[in-house]
């Protein structure tokens, strides 16, 4: 009898074991392989999409705290995601190139909601751009025209639903879909919390700014172009600023070169470029500004000159008189700065 009992128990255990295996296997099947009958109206959601290992980037241990926000009114909606140069477009699609061209290193993202109200949520995007100037390039080139300068940081602005700022090599966006008061307050709180930490102690150096006169300058209008500014491949590290004169806007630019000779050649090169690519030379020799060159690009007027190591000028002006007036003021101001 003992023999038969042992066999029976073994068979029962085997059956239980098989049931367990079936249960585990069935509860982990690939749901994307199946449709569900229409009448159930159930969505086919995979438990977790499997992405090839080489496409997944995990945060380093030192990075995991970057988007930890110790604010009690805010709850994280999930873990921080990270994206490298190979996967950035998975997150921001066609806008990836804007960052990749400027030395992008890594993007950290995390969503948060207001505590107790998951429908009010926002997302933090923290871009490591490698160095502060790269961060300023992507920050300044995306600045929204109707935005307001913010007091959060030296380079920061806000719109109705978001704030944008740089700190060291990081460019950060905190974006929500709503523009209500509670959300705005939460976003400001999170921004302040992040800025309290020394994410990067090296602050951006923008020596070009000292050569722009303050009078008539549009607040927060500085833009830095790392390469190919105005379509000219020799124009690198070009800082522009917008001025408002008699309700007309006009753009001035500054480039710092390593020596006077190089600055002179750069100014001459830009004039030659304008003439070569469809523009006409504009004779400005009567302006009493040494080394001033002009170009008429189908009704847009550009002026360029060099003074010391500084290349400067006016870009895309709609009328000649304003362009000449601003070029003259810029020339004098640069002179006073390089004394």
């Amino acid at each position, binding site marked *: 009898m003992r023999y038969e009992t042992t066999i029976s128990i073994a068979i029962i255990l085997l059956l239980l074991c098989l049931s367990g295996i079936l249960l585990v296997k069935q509860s982990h099947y690939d749901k994307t392989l199946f449709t569900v009958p229409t009448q159930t109206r159930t969505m086919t959601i*995979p438990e977790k999409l499997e992405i090839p290992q080489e496409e997944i980037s995990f945060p380093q241990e030192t990075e995991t705290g970057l988007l930890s926000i110790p604010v009690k009114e805010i709850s994280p909606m999930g873990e921080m995601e990270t994206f490298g140069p190979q996967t950035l477009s998975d997150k921001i699609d066609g806008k990836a190139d804007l960052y990749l061209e400027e030395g992008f290193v890594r993007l950290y993202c995390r969503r948060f909601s207001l505590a107790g109200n998951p429908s009010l949520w926002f997302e933090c995007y923290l871009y490591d751009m490698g160095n502060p100037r790269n961060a300023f390039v992507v920050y300044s080139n995306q600045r929204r025209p109707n935005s307001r300068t913010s007091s959060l940081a030296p380079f920061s602005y806000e719109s109705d639903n978001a704030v944008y700022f740089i700190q060291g090599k990081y460019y950060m966006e905190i974006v929500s879909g709503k523009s209500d008061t509670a959300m705005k307050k939460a976003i400001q709180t999170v921004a302040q919390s992040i800025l309290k930490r020394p994410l990067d102690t090296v602050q951006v150096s923008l020596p070009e700014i000292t050569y722009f006169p303050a009078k008539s300058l549009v607040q927060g209008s500085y833009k830095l172009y790392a390469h190919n500014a105005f379509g000219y491949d020799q124009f690198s590290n070009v800082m522009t600023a917008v001025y408002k004169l008699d309700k007309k806007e006009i753009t001035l630019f500054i480039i710092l070169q390593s020596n006077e000779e190089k600055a002179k050649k750069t100014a001459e090169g830009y004039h030659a470029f304008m003439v070569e690519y469809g523009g006409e030379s504009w004779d400005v020799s009567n302006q009493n500004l040494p080394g001033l060159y002009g170009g008429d690009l189908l009704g847009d007027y550009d002026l360029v000159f060099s003074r010391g190591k500084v290349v400067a000028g006016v870009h895309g002006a709609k009328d000649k008189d304003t362009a000449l007036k601003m070029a003259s003021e810029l020339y004098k101001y640069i002179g006073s700065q390089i004394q």
Partner: protein
Amino acid sequence: MTYQEDEIRNMNRREFINRSIKASLTIAGLASVGYVFYRNNPPEILTAPRQNISLSDYSISKAGKKIAIARGTKRSDTLTKAIGALGGIEAYIQKDDIVLIKVNGAFATPPELGATSHPELVQTLISLCLKAGAREVRVSDNPINDPESCFRLSGLEQATRNSGGRLFLPGKSSFSPITLSNGKLIKNWPFLWTPMKNVTKLIGVAPLKDHHRSGASMTMKNWYGLLGGRRNIFHQDIHTIIEELALLIKPTFVVLDATVTMMTNGPTGGSLDDLKPTGLMIVSTDQVAADAYGAELLGKPLLPFIRNALKAGVGTADYKSLNPIMT
């Protein structure tokens, strides 16, 4: 004598009947459990084939090339008006059709940011298709990064549920290779196939957006979301890939939502300041015409991919030649 032989020999009639009844009840119980779990309509297995697939022509030749533009801010109204101006949904969707609505669900952002197809628009379109007799209306896109979050946070999941549609999220087995004959880029490239299986009508629904690389993201660029793999390599030749997708895919009609337009910082946007209220809904059987109109709204009339598509014979960039119906 064994234990069993001894027991059987000593068993009386009553005990035999009792044991037989218990055994029968056990077998009947197990069979009942099996019956409860039995399904005579098991789910269809949707594994994408590994060999090259080819797409049908989903356009309706007798409908011809048309474009309608409706003015208004309520998407459900403007969509209904624009489709009505093109002959009504019944001219395009018949009884028992299986319809795929290819939305732009590329980002896990709220609908207010205008980066994805608007849920109200998708919900209305699903309802119209079902009302016209469609057997099934599917909604899909391949956002690559976490599709579940993209559909949930953009409101498209809820919109699909609410209106009786079926959402297909891409999985690892959803793609089959596809090749565009004489194509330069689309050669044995993974294509989102499972939601397209047995589909009889295809509708593209895209928001009108600025795009950092291509200049604009509209109805032709929307097909990009049907590609799988490391498709970002196509960003280097974005105008050609859009042209090839437009050649590959012949939709029943397309919807270009310009109720609000993302004028800057596309395709992600991020600020409400990137959006401009333009109050227009464009529905067309000619995707090139729809995009040409959208490009004008963005102030970028001469986009290379529109010129390419025109040259390739996909449609007309002179949307005015189709006598747009304004409603």
